[in-house]
């Protein structure tokens, strides 16, 4: 497994070459605009004596920053996961790498770890900003906030693993589309079909529902710091996270098995 880490480090370096700095800069710009607007609103609210309204703005800012980064990184993870293997097979750099005593499983695991590490490393930026803002404005960080962070990281792990796994056996476009659209739609379709009066359709719906990842019942980060809301079912959220990690692991194992039998370099 040590070799998988070597591949992961190389994948991180490769991702670093993709000018993600523009992506990060764009997010920073949006965050800076949000911060400026929020500070203006706080100032105006305090001047107007709306103390309660002013105190509600910093938690909103924190959740907005985290949600924006979380959604963007979720899409970025999907994009990186879908393209990280094809980039290497297209450039044929994979040939001297796989000619080394490295199994295909290790190679694939290294790619997935690299993609996940890139997403998590980028997530540290908004997390650091948010923790600083929480300390600065004296915002209490709730249980929902920490579970929301766990939910975000779990999503990167599951998304990164699933897209790398699918991209190892399909084209990058098919892998990305499947993870982003086909699987959620299939889950929705399956769920709808389970209530069909025809038992065959209902059974098919049940199979489809079982073959797709679980839907998170509540995106915690959006309302993590909203004290007026009733606490969501944390246990259920944790269970869904575990289920999706398991789903990603099974998909990865299957894809690795197929990838180990795939021919490499036959196009030249």
């Amino acid at each position, binding site marked *: 497994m040590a*070799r998988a880490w*070597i*591949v992961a480090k*190389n994948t991180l*370096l*490769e991702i*670093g*070459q993709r000018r993600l700095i523009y992506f990060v800069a764009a997010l920073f710009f949006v965050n800076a605009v949000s911060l400026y607007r929020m500070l203006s609103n706080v100032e105006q609210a305090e001047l107007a004596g709306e103390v309660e309204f002013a105190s509600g703005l910093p938690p909103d800012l924190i959740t907005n920053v985290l949600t924006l980064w979380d959604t963007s990184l979720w899409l970025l993870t999907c994009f990186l996961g879908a393209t990280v293997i094809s980039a290497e097979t297209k*450039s*044929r*750099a994979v*040939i*001297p*790498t*796989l*000619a*080394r*005593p*490295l*199994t295909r499983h290790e190679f694939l695991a290294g790619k997935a770890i690299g993609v996940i590490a890139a997403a998590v490393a980028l997530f540290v930026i908004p997390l650091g900003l948010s923790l600083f803002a929480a300390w600065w404005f004296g915002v209490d960080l709730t249980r929902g906030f920490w579970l929301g962070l766990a939910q975000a990281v779990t999503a990167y792990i599951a998304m990164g693993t699933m897209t790398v796994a699918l991209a190892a056996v399909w084209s990058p476009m098919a892998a990305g589309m499947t993870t982003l659209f086909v699987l959620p739609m299939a889950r929705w379709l399956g769920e709808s079909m389970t209530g069909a009066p025809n038992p065959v359709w209902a059974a098919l719906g049940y199979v489809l529902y079982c073959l797709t990842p679980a839907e998170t019942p509540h995106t915690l980060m959006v309302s993590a710091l909203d004290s007026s809301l009733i606490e969501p079912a944390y246990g259920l959220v944790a269970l869904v996270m575990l289920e999706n990690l398991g789903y990603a692991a099974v998909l990865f194992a299957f894809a690795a098995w197929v990838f180990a*039998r795939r*021919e*490499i*370099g*036959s196009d*030249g």
Partner: protein
Amino acid sequence: MTDVALRVTGLTKRYRGWFGRGVLAVDDLSLEIEAGEALALVGPNGAGKTTTLLSILGLLRPERGEIRIFGEPAASRAARARLGFLSEIFYTYPYRRADDLMRFYGRLSGMTEVALAERIPPLLERVGLAESSRRRVKRFSKGMVQRLGLAQALLHQPDLLVLDEPTTGLDPEGRRMVADVVSEEQRRGTAILLSSHILTDVERVCDRVVMLRRGKVVLADRVAAVTAGRSLEDAYMELVGGSSDG
């Protein structure tokens, strides 16, 4: 432990399309290379040389036949730990520095940091890249990339060296260097499988030659026997001339 570094038995590989029977790239190829021996695989474009080499690396799955490296199946980790490979063009990660890239390949081969620190500088010196060791590969010329490819193939001191047209993109000095390195490795006891179109290089460094034409072996003999009274190029033209597919 066996003295046979590489044993290919009845290798047959067909590239299949969606329809039809596909293209037979290699047809019932058998060869053996012993430790310290250099064997050349020659033939026109499309003769099946690269397919054979990629099958030896375990990257292609033969339709029939068996490939063993020091008695181990070709695709196994144990086999690849003893194998060094350089392709026609050394495809690699251009964003990495030369010494860093060597460390990457060395670590994948299970080398320790101490071994890497001892091995990399003299090896880069040997291939003429000592002064460029801190430069990124994307700043290298084609010839420099190929020299780096040779260095990574030799890094873990493999017992079997598989070289697919290793002198592509090299100037005469670079070609001489490759020939010298191959000869040194052979003296060290390394078995060498060399695929090349440059028959003078083959004559210079190889003990035996296998000529392929449309995937089939048309000649397998000692270089000295083939070149008795004629050049290898004359023998080549006589046996496989005019059958180029590419």
